[in-house]
């Protein structure tokens, strides 16, 4: 019988010095991922981290698994090729908001529609970190950066809506500061069979400090965040006097929890596409809090499984004789002896 290896978090650390800026949100994410690996029972040699380019994309160097630090925007397509040929591997993609949504936006949506069983950790810091502070496709309109001295006029992407539009089978949001939530969200992403996209709000304390403070500051987060739990009502605000969201014939409303009719409460069902769509747009204008947790999930056939099924119905031709038949074709002729 094969011996099951038992690892600890330390086994997933490499001898390379971690080189993010002191205080960068990436550290917290790295810690949670290292802690999670042994909990998931993953074997080092069967796990691959693939990244593009950006601060976040340095991640694979710090994980003692197989790793590939590729080129800007292409981690998703490298991972697709790897997963198609090696369905036995656990594949983790590390990307940034620029890497995954700007230069690599095309590959991201195509990966989502194909739905291979991989996990995508998109570190969204709403800025280009590595190139020192230009606006990214998620930077809010009007943001002043070195490349937008008068403020950007670009309308930003809403990643959750983008993912749903691309038929993602799993989308969740979490944030670097909430270590437990982060780890649990990643666990669910791993457990989902199909492409799991996790947007991780990540603080870049050098070029975009505090962008997510509305969701992380002790005083403000109760009002501004909505924690999604399957089967529970969507409530937020003061725990003593929570507000609950209501869902009546597709119309969203909010009521004081105590004073409301439980029948009208919006109970979180991540399998409900219409509700997920509403959740993805809920806080566009900040009238409602921002949802964290699994917004949407769906059981959809996995790309590499579909490929394997096709392969199964085709009688294999793998012998030398088969090869010779391919080389000769069926219209050959003999000259001389």
């Amino acid at each position, binding site marked *: 019988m094969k011996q099951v290896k038992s690892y600890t978090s330390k086994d997933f650390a*490499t001898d*390379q010095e971690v080189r993010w800026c002191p205080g960068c949100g990436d550290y917290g994410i790295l810690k949670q991922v290292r802690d999670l690996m042994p909990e998931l029972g993953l*074997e*080092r*040699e*069967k796990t*691959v*981290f*693939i990244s593009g*380019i950006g601060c976040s994309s340095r991640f*694979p*160097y710090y*994980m*003692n*698994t*197989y*790793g*590939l*630090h*590729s*080129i800007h925007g*292409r981690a998703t*397509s*490298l*991972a*697709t*090729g*790897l*997963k*198609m*040929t*090696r369905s*036995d*591997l656990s594949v983790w993609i590390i990307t940034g908001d620029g890497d995954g949504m700007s230069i690599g936006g*095309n*590959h991201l949506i*195509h990966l989502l529609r194909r739905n291979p069983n991989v996990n995508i950790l998109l570190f969204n810091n709403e800025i280009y970190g590595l190139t020192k502070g230009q606006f990214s496709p998620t930077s809010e309109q009007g943001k002043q950066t070195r490349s937008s001295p008068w403020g950007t006029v670009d309308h930003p992407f809403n990643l959750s809506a983008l993912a749903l539009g691309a038929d993602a089978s799993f989308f969740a949001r979490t944030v670097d500061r909430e270590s437990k939530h982060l780890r649990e969200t990643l666990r669910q992403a791993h457990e989902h069979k199909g492409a799991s996209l996790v947007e991780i709000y990540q603080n870049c304390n050098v070029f975009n400090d505090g962008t997510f403070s509305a969701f992380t500051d002790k005083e403000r987060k109760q009002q501004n965040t909505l924690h999604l739990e399957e089967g529970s009502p969507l409530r937020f605000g003061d725990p003593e006097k929570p507000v609950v969201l209501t869902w009546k014939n597709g119309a969203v409303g909010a009521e004081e929890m105590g004073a409301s009719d439980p029948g009208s409460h919006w109970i979180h069902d991540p399998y409900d596409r219409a509700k997920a769509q509403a959740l993805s747009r809920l806080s566009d204008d900040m009238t409602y809090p921002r949802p964290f947790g699994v917004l949407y999930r769906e059981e959809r056939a996995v790309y590499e499984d579909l*490929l394997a099924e*096709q*392969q199964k119905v*085709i*009688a*294999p*031709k*793998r012998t*030398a004789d*088969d*090869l*010779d038949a*391919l*080389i*000769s*074709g069926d*219209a*050959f*002729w*003999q*000259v*001389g*002896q």
Partner: protein
Amino acid sequence: MKAGSKDLAKATVLFAGDSGDGMQLTGGQFTQTTALSGNDLNTFPDFPAEIRAPAGTVPGVSGFKIHFGSAKVYTAGDQVDTLVAMNAAALSSQMDQLKEGGLIIANSNGMDARNLRLAGINEDRDLLGEAEQRGFELVSVEITRLTKEALKDSPLSNKDKDRAKNMFTLGLVYWLYDREPERTERFLEKRFADQEDIREANIKVLRAGHHYGETAELFRNRFSVPPADLAPGRYRNIKGNQALSIGLITAAHKSGLELFYAGYPITPASDILHELARSKAYGVQAFQAEDEIAAITAAIGAAFGGSLAVTASSGPGIALKTEALGLAVMLELPLVVVNVQRGGPSTGLPTKTEQSDLGQALFGRNGEAPLPVLSCASPKDAFDVAFEACQIALEHMTPVMILSDGYIANGSEPWKFPSSSELPEIQPPVHKAEDGDYTPYKRDEKGVRKWAIPGTAGAEHRIGGLEKQAETGHVSYDSENHQQMVRERKEKVERVAHGYAAQEVSCGSKKGGLLVISWGSTYGAVRTAVERLHKNGIAVGQYHLRHLHPLPSDLGKLIERYDQWLIPELNEGQLLQLIRSTYLVDAKGLNKVQGVPFAHREVEEAIVGMINEKK
């Protein structure tokens, strides 16, 4: 008039008609039958860029040329002996290809006022009369009417009856060149196995055409091209893209790896995708990616995972792959990249052939990023080149570029194919768990690193596009180390040349006089030209360059044996620059970028011109 029979050493036939007239199929059938009759041959289709150009117009003309003979045939022929023209557009646009006194078989039903108008020709003109006046032998046949007549009892619709007329033409041409229609009958039986009416109609019309040749006494001569004296062995007819695909599958088998192919549709490389997509049974995974960047990066991902990874495209797509190709150089993973060249720059001439991406292949990457570059000389050669490219990529852990082109991709010729047992096993330097510690960039005596594939315990490692420390592969910004790694990668690629056989001329004089250096698909035209002139006592030889990088180490010595050098290329002199700067010789170029291959006459004139100039 009863036709006399005439033996020919070689003949060139051009089938030309509207895209909807089935000329490619007609040409393909004529080719198979000709190959089975033992001729050497070479074919080239010439189809329109538009998928459905308006019927009857000149842009809608689709042609198929076949050059066959009882002697060796190296090109699809310069001038045409027999032109089969199904309509006015085909006749008017292709007539100039005929040799003096050549034969025209014209479908007179396709030459009426309507067809003239569609072809943009004044309705008052008498195209057939003009052809005769120019001294061509004209055989005018009411092909459309005769086809319908042969099918008067068939239940097919008028339109379907009309579509069978290419079979009448084929039957007639079979008769003219003394060929039996049986093979095509068998083909039709198979192709239309469950469409009885269409099957019967096509066979009937094919026979009617053949019979018409026999009874109508149309031709002055009937021709016979005896079998060629080919080396003993088993032969098949093969197209370039097909040979290349089979070469890739063979290499995967011989290395014990799975073949992963990723591509994005582009002319003239798409047939490689099609061919491999239907080869799943052989363990091939063909992936149609969202773009060329995704294709090559998916291939690199598969290479990291231990597959034999391949991607193919044409110029514009290769341009998109460039950055990732640099990554493959840096990672030192095996990867084969095929460029089926077409006319450029930009979208250029998608359906026409050119050799203008040599510079791109050799130098088109940022940084010092050398990689082996091989070129195919002809359709069948694409098999050997594909196999060798995989062998180099896997055994030297490097991306390799193959240069083919539109002429090779779609052209065909008989191929004396090998048995798989004659081919060598390919041995990639795979690191096994029991090999102990793994150091990602530690090199062997050939400068090659080991390939540790995910799943191998104890060999977990991280690699990337950043410069890495020698041996360990850790990220390193050290300046001395960078210099060292640039050299190590370069030397590794240069050592590939140690595996080449000794270089020799392909034909003609072995020393002294003029050396013509060919590469890629100019092989055939140059070979024909040099053999003809050499036979007439002219001191000229041909050297064909397959390995464009690294260059063979003994090539300099070979070049020194001659006094003059000519380099014909379908570009503005890209190999010329390389040869001049590498060997410091005063080589001259013969350059053509018209979307068509060289005619051997053009090469002959250039050779003779250069020699005369020197006298």
